[in-house]
């Protein structure tokens, strides 16, 4: 198996360190760390409806996280899931009310449109990458902000629910017959869909030539290219897939628990998805469990006020700490990135081809 056992072990260690650090911070801030921890457990697992809630928050993270795994595995740092998710949600919410036909068809078309919208948003970065070599990390990050502003525009302008009194701009609620799940966010259709996606991605990564090619491109593009893998096609496919998955997550959100398009909904899913992928050791299976973990945290934080006065922002602190620590051990695979991350690129100066080839053999740094 591709799964790197030691990477997963280290992920667990890093999370443990972050949790301990957080417990200390909570205790020092005057909260009971014990209460907080038991509250987390109740909110995520043992409390009434907790497992359902955990699942509700895990499902979008699974889609986004696994999509991120596909891109990161092939060495492309697509962090644009947030924007892609918004685009998917907008496409579904805008299209469904104006479509003719029976509800299931409208629902299906809406979901497909969301997948397509997420893909297109993601492919902007792929196009910039293949045509200009633009760093995909920067472009996808910027596309996230643009996507959030598009959502803000849509919910304040064309799709605004004028009857609503709410402080937050939102589109009118979607009719119940096109909703995939109710407000619980867990239903047979979306759970089945996510499970199918996970199985499909697992198969793609572990059983197909494409998955193996993408993995080797990510680990050593030189080797892959010399075996005849076309890196360009890997860029297009992985960006399309991860964008499509994020778009699907967006559709499941507006056609499920939120039931309508709301400005700035689920603001952290994109970044948490990156964490899910990294914590999961860039494997589908690992990311699935990581998504359950982060979903459980999200569920617990909603439940916490019942048992302790620990504020919601505690979750962000914990996630921030995990994120801060999680790449400490992934470094070896990421050297490529480090070489890229530099301002004011060094221009053409030396005559090509006269640099010392021996620098490579004599200076194995």
């Amino acid at each position: 198996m591709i799964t790197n056992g030691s990477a997963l072990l280290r992920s667990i260690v890093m999370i443990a360190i972050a949790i301990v650090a957080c417990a200390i911070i909570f205790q020092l801030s005057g909260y009971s760390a014990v209460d907080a921890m038991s509250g987390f457990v109740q909110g995520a697992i043992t409390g009434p409806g907790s497992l359902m809630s955990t699942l509700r928050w895990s499902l979008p993270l699974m889609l986004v996280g696994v999509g991120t795994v596909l891109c990161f595995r092939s060495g492309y740092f697509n962090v644009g899931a947030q924007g892609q998710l918004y685009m998917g949600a907008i496409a579904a919410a805008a299209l469904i009310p104006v479509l003719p036909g029976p509800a299931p068809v409208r629902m299906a078309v809406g979901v497909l449109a969301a997948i397509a919208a997420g893909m297109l948003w993601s492919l902007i970065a792929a196009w910039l990458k293949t045509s200009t070599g633009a760093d995909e990390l920067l472009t996808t990050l910027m596309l996230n902000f643009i996507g959030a502003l598009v959502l803000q525009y849509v919910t304040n302008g064309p799709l605004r629910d004028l009857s609503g009194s709410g402080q937050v701009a939102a589109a009118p609620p979607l009719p119940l017959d096109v909703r995939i799940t109710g407000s619980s966010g867990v239903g047979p259709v979306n759970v089945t869909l996510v499970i199918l996606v996970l199985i499909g991605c697992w198969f793609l990564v572990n059983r197909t030539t494409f998955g193996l090619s993408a993995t080797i491109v990510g680990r050593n593009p030189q080797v892959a290219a010399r075996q005849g893998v076309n890196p360009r096609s890997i860029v297009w496919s992985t960006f399309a897939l991860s964008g499509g998955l994020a778009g699907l997550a967006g559709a499941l959100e507006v056609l499920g628990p939120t039931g309508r398009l709301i400005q700035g909904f689920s603001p952290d899913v994109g970044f948490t998805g990156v964490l899910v992928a990294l914590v999961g050791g860039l494997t589908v299976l690992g990311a699935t469990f990581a998504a359950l973990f982060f979903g459980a945290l999200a569920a617990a934080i909603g439940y916490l006020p019942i048992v302790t006065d620990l504020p919601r922002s505690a979750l962000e602190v914990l996630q921030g700490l995990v994120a801060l620590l999680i790449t400490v051990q992934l470094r070896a695979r990421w050297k490529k990135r480090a070489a890229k991350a530099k301002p004011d690129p060094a221009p053409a100066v030396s005559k090509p081809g006269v640099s010392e080839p021996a620098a490579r053999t004599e200076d194995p740094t």
Partner: protein
Amino acid sequence: MPDALEARSLTKHFGDFAAIDDVSLSFPRGQVHAVVGQNGAGKTTFSRLICGLYEPTAGEVLVDGTPLRVGDIRSARQQGVDMVHQNFSLPPSFTVAEAMQLFDPGAPAVVGRRAMERRWSEALRRRGSAIDARRRIRDLSVEARQSLEIIRALEGQPTVLLLDEPTAVLAPSEVQGLFEQVRRLRDSGLTILIILHKLPEVFAIADTVSVLREGRVALAVTPIGEVTAEELTRHIIGPDSELPQAHSRAEDAVGSATGADHLDQASGTVLELEAVDAPPSASDRSLEDVDLRVRAGEVLGIAGVEGNGQETLLDVLSGFGRVSSGTIRLEGTEVTGLGVLARRRRGVRFIPSDRNSQGVSLTTSLWENIAITDLLLEGRRWFSPRGRKAAAATRLATWKVKHRRVEQLAGELSGGNVQRVILARELADGVRLVIAGNPTRGLDLAATAFVRAGLTALAQEGVAVVIVSADLEEIRDVSDRICVMRGGRIVAALERNAPLATVGAAMVGDAA
């Protein structure tokens, strides 16, 4: 009075690899000392040790009899040792004045642009340079950058100056200017260490010459008048160069009812290059007007000093690099425009010269490293890992790869075994042409023999083999014919029994 610079038992390990192994050399004052050797002989490591950029694993460097504080470039400079780096060390976006300021340890914390430019304009003029201090480094010609690097070093008032392959980046006409400057500096009392590749240059400039081979001293500081070009070539490429076992391959071939016959019978031309020009590749120079022809069952050796276009040739042959003009034919069919996979499907296999960065993915398991090639060749979309692992296990066993499990990461194997993995992967069914770059570099004797035997055995079966190698001994041992590359061209086409001196002379240029 002690010598200007002395290295005592200097040793530098990179991991297990000893780049410099117990090197002791002593350089008298006020002379130009050339240090020569093949690529990988340790010249650059040696110079970086002396200038304080690397910390030695063992041994010490003495300047005027005083030990150098090791691994500290600033104190090396204070003690009077400075180096002009081959790849240059001035940041390209800086102006000349800024770059000079960066290297000046006594520079004030804050400085005005005008004052800075005035100061360095004067310094440049004083040293007879016409370079404008306001220009950016990246806008300077290579020659100007080099003379600036030298001025930069001289500003620190060194007593010993190291020049790391200064001629590698210069055109022949520019080399004359450089040498005149070097002579002037020597006459002003400076001790100069100059690392060189080409023998004519050694004889043109050096007062003494030393040779490094495989990280050790092959010839210690010897006055230039006491050696001939032939002797020097032999020191560079190895003392056993004319031993009889050198012709083992030839004898084998003769033994088996004359090698020439076996070639004639399978005389179909497998690979043909006609007037191929190619742009520079990532690590090597351009190709100019390359013609090649390899027949089935023939081993063609391509010799040359590294950096003369061999890497570009390897890329062009494998389909990884593009040509700008000319044609490549494979068994009579033009394949010039075909990519890597299309050529692989026509029977081209590739053993890249840098196995760790181009050959296998070290962070990937053995079976996946093998499976990727097969899957792409077969054009399959999905696979069963169990089947692929079994197939990989068989292949690894055939090629006697020492491994524990097929799930093991390639990076856990030794260099020789990694190379066997590559052979096991590449040399399976349907091979018509094998292109191998430095296939035995860094391998021990047993692994080397194994790899060479594998390649020669293939040729016996009628496969065409092209071996590009910087190792003359290897070329001589396995080749039926030898081509020599220099300056992106094929400068000589020789038979396998051509004297080594002839090959060496063609590699380094005429040493007349």
